[in-house]
């Protein structure tokens, strides 16, 4: 894939495969193209060049809508509608015209999973950053996506909330394929089955967390893991 914004190339010659039922961590310093990659995988942005395949099927105008329904994304900064936690989580289900009882059952179940069931009637925007991020994850999870994209879900969170989000991600990976973008290599090590490292819109390394984070061969990845490349 290739993607540029206003003449600035963000993703170039990127070729990546996400394996089903695994957690793929996309690591890399700020500006390496992680968010852009996830936005293209979520079909928010289109690549200027290149193709996306979903389970071997080329994504195009004829099947994009159906495939988009199987993929959801959680943004780096918790974006929430100015509604209650319950209504936020129910939004996607309401679009599907599900019955109220079904929506309630699903929403409460997923709120329980993220530890937010007691906050159902609270307004999302009045919650803390960590709580808002948990609502955002619940809202994505309630749709039971096959592929869940998490864009730096713990950025700007305190250690307690980070651990809570990581606990939730460990729960999620039992039921969906997960791609998590993070600039924290240790978090990638804790959560993922495979790691891909981006730099300037290119893949500079791909492998198991051990290969990429514990024993990196590439000097640029070594620098990134040591915190010398941010």
């Amino acid at each position: 894939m290739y993607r540029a914004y206003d003449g600035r190339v963000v993703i170039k010659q990127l070729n990546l495969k996400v394996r089903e039922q695994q957690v793929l961590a996309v690591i890399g310093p700020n500006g390496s193209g992680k968010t852009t990659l996830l936005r293209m995988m979520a079909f928010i942005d289109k690549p200027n060049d290149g193709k996306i395949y979903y389970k071997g099927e080329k994504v195009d105008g004829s099947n994009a809508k159906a495939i988009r329904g199987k993929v959801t994304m959680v943004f780096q900064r918790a974006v929430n509608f100015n509604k209650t936690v319950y209504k936020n989580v129910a939004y996607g289900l309401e679009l599907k015209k599900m019955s109220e009882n079904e929506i309630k059952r699903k929403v409460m179940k997923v709120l329980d999973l993220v530890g937010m069931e007691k906050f159902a009637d609270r307004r999302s925007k009045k919650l803390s950053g960590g709580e808002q991020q948990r609502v955002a994850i619940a809202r994505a999870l309630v749709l039971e996506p096959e592929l869940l994209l998490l864009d730096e879900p713990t950025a700007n969170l305190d250690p307690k909330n980070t651990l809570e989000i990581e606990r939730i991600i460990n729960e999620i990976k039992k039921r969906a394929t997960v791609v998590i973008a993070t600039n924290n290599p240790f978090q990638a090590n804790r959560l993922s089955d495979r790691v891909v490292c981006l730099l300037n819109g290119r893949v500079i390394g791909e492998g198991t967390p051990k290969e990429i984070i514990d024993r990196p061969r590439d000097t640029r990845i070594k620098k990134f893991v040591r915190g010398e490349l941010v």
Partner: protein
Amino acid sequence: MALSLSMREFRGKRVIKSIFTALIGMPTVALGLILYLLYSSSGPLGPLHLLYSPSGIIIGQAILITPIIVSFTVSALESVDPEVKDLARTLGASEGQASLAVLSEAKKGATLAVAAAFNRAIAELGVAMTIGGNIYGYTQVLTTAISKGVAMGEIMLCIELTVVLLVIVFSLTLLTNLLRRD
């Protein structure tokens, strides 16, 4: 119109937004005069017989308040987190549904826009007087009735009508504030 101006990119968008903003300050007397020339029997809209008719006033006031609603609503929509639309789309919303989600986030500002526009329309004098002609029982509105009452020295009637006008304006403001509360 506000949704298009805030969410779509097209040539001349800035100019159109500037025109709407500039028209907010349009003097009602000036608009009344322009419409009078258009509505009069020798004007291009003469055959429609809009002069001295309630329809003529309604059209005039709609023109008067459209820039207020559009400009304020555009401003409210542009202050919504730009990721809200993307968020709605990732949750399965169509383009229209995603736009509605953004509009819903801007509803406080949009409500204020409608309230401000209503207050502007009900309190204006220039269009109603020039286009309506202040015909009792037909095109006379509160403001023109008050104006006529002052001219004829019917001060008590004017005070009563002013109280009615103020009650309407303040009630609407109160209702707007209630609607804008979380």
